[in-house]
């Protein structure tokens, strides 16, 4: 993926805004931001962001490519949609944040230690197996993300919650052994494969050929 990144830098040397416009989902909206700051003010996690959305948009225009794509901030979005609802220019800010995160992921620029990115990968891998989320496996994988000792600690801390979930049938211990799948698992994988192909084609059109 490093090569894709280099190719993209080469292609859009002058304008990161144009690169975002062409490659990031809903990226064509970034130019419409009028810097009012309502998104940053509306974000429930705003004060924890190193660069709140308003700044991210300004940084894109200022050509701060690495700072944006390697930023932890775009991974901070919890999809509460407050910003989308309030944006006077109707920018789909939540989608743009996810779009930027996704693009950074494709280019291999995501900070290695970012927990949200790690969890997202875990979630994806979990989902791919059966076409459904396996709560037990996902939960355990999450607990043990930072090593065995830490995992035990977290698991014990959440013991009560886990028991309650099992009692109400939200989590099944049997899921540890395989777990159940969607009705047409092969079809599910086919859909995703097609989606991947389309995505690759889009990137190829805007940048270098896929796999280059």
């Amino acid at each position: 993926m490093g090569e894709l990144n280099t190719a993209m830098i080469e292609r859009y040397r002058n304008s990161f805004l144009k690169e975002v416009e062409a490659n990031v989902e809903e990226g064509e909206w970034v130019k419409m931001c009028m810097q009012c700051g309502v998104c940053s003010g509306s974000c429930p996690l705003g004060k924890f962001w190193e660069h709140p959305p308003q700044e991210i948009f300004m940084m894109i225009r200022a050509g701060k490519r690495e700072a944006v794509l390697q930023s932890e901030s775009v991974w901070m979005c919890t999809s509460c949609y407050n910003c989308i609802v309030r944006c006077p220019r109707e920018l789909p800010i939540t989608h743009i944040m996810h779009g930027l995160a996704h693009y950074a992921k494709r280019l291999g620029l995501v900070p290695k230690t970012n927990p949200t990115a790690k969890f997202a990968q875990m979630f994806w891998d979990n989902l791919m197996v059966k076409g459904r989320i396996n709560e037990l496996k996902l939960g355990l994988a999450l607990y043990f993300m930072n090593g065995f000792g830490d995992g035990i600690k977290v698991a014990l801390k959440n013991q009560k919650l886990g028991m309650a979930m099992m009692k109400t049938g939200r989590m099944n211990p049997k899921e540890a052994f395989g777990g159940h799948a969607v009705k047409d698992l092969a079809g599910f994988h086919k859909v995703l494969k097609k989606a991947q192909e389309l995505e690759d084609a889009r990137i190829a059109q805007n940048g270098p050929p896929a796999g280059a």
Partner: protein
Amino acid sequence: MAAEKKLAGYICTGCGIGERLDAKQLQAVATREGKLPSVKQHPMLCGAEGVKLIQDDIDAGNATHIMIAACSRRSKVEAFSFPTVAMSRANLREGVIWARPEGDEHQETTQEMADDYIRMAAAEIKFMTVPESSGEQELNKTLLVVGGGMTGMTAAVEAAKAGYPVHLVCDEPVLGGVWKDLYKRVPFRAAAFDVPGGNDVDLPQPEDPGLDDLIEQVMANGRITVHLNAKITKTSGAPGRFSADLSMESGRTLTENFGAIVQATDYKPYDANQLPEFAYGTTPDVLTNFEFERLAKQANGAVIKRPSDGRAVKSVAFIQCAGQRSSNAGHLPYCSGFCCTESIKQAMYFKAQNPGCDATILFDDLRTPGAAGEDFYRSGQQAMVTFTKGQASAVVAAGGDLRVKFKDLILNEDTEMVCDLVVLATGQVPNTGPDPYAQLAVDEAPTEEEKAAARAALAVAPPSILNLDYRQGTDLPHLKHGFVDSHFICFPYETRRTGIYAAGPVRRPMDLKQAMDDAVGATMKAIQSLENAARGSAAHPRVGDLSYPRFRKEGCTQCKRCTVECPFGAINEDEQRYPQFNESRCRRCGTCMGACPVRVISFDNYSVDTVGQQLKAVDVPDEFSEKPRILCLACENDAYPALDMAAQSGEHITPFARVIPVRCLGSVSLSWVTDALNSGYDGIVLMGCRRDDDYQCHFVRGSAMAAERLSKVGDTLTQLNLETERVAVHEVAITDLKRAPAILNEMAETITRIGMSPFKF
């Protein structure tokens, strides 16, 4: 008008007046004390039957001077419209019953209030006459439009469309003025109503400026006479009878008569030589927005090239607010209001004409007033113009490139960008004549030093445009920063010279669309003015008033106070230095009347007597009655309506106050204050509009004049051994519904504290 006065009074008992007050008592007061030979009552005087009752008396010749005791003089003006007779109104509804609580314990003082208002109105009517025309009126339908720009041309075309002939004076060889260099204009319309939000929707685009069309319309119009390369060397007269000397290119002078004048002299581009920090003048690649527009016009849709080396521009920066919105010396302190949309438009030229060109607008506060407004901002964003919230500090020319240093205000960092061309968004400087009061300051400076200072200020003043032959200077008075207007929010286009209206950027900074809209408004005002002048009736704000200042020449001491203090420069001086009132230049505020130390100035229906007799008619109880009397002189524009509306909304006032409306606090004669004190009033409250900076006075300076005159009243009070608190001057706005009554109630409390006046007989 018949020489014999036939007085008649009419008391309305409707709206609760009959229930709350003793109507018999009112009738008795009007007859015995008011000495009105005929007094009639009606349960609904403003109804058809009541109005007929009055009209029949008038028609039968039994009433030439009528007193109506009913609601406020501000209510039922259509019903109680009897233009052939003199009329006074006693305010029993808003002034008494609505302003007082119900209940037996209040009955006595409330009734006394009503009795007094009847006495006052009956006294007033005896000193009023029906305003009669002076015979000075003329109808001259021709308009003089000064300025051949888009504003002036629009004014001319609009006036011609309305059927009024126009002389259009332009000091340049061609029409168009500052707008003639426009390549395209900021769109005149917003997006269609149903255009949604989006990043690829149908938004307004830069459009053809329409200059040639407008010039064609002007030249082809039979009602418009265009004078190119012409100047106005003298303007004299008044609305309806202005006379202007036009000095033509040939050297000939043409004298023409006009009914009214529109000054549409637009603006002068700001002199960017005062911006060396942006490398202006050191490289041709730094241009002002005005200069760049010419460059774009030359390119005419083709690739825009750098002036220095003819290379196609690949990257351009627009610096907003250049030399504007800043307190630095030589900068304009105000926002010119057109430059943001102008820069968006110019940035879009690059996006359309220079493939792949980056266009960045460095702004602090992007403001897009005007018709297309925010939609045009979005239009620029859709075209991929980069909007950077940043404050530019310097432009450095280095190796063929320009480096723009700026502070990014979102990312809070000092940074820079490299580009080929820089456009400075500079502002509009009003193209007006010198402030007349700058000239007066020279004439009237008491010492040589002050004269020299005033002369220095005048030396940098621009040359005169109108060359008015007025006592108070050659041009329109300035409001702020050289713009001429009297109040751009409350009374746009109205200047402080009646019959001369300001349109476009001479009034306040604005874009083309607003300037053209302005021209329509100012032209309409000018037409109204000349039509009013023909009827002898006043212009704004006393529209339709037929009274005008009359003066008793034999009593005049030629002190010149009236000619100096008239806020509208209406009064000239004749050869013998007597005032010349120029009726149709007068706004009827009465500031001259308040200024006159020998009380020789009066109006037919408003004079030193009409108010003086009212305050003397009030029954002043003795010192031991515990019933003080407070005189309130309230401006009819704001304070009096505020009191009316306060009563309407249930605010109560002290029963000891007697309120008399005045045309303006500027019309208040100091003799009223002395008379009131001598008559035993315990307190006097004067309510006028906000004065000085951000004034709200409808006559601009009236309230300020009054405050100046009344500032000396304290000395008089001390001499009389009276407490200075007994006279209070307050600024009251029309919205002060709680405060206006509170001021009167406070005065009542003050009197309780300091005791009654010793001057009671």
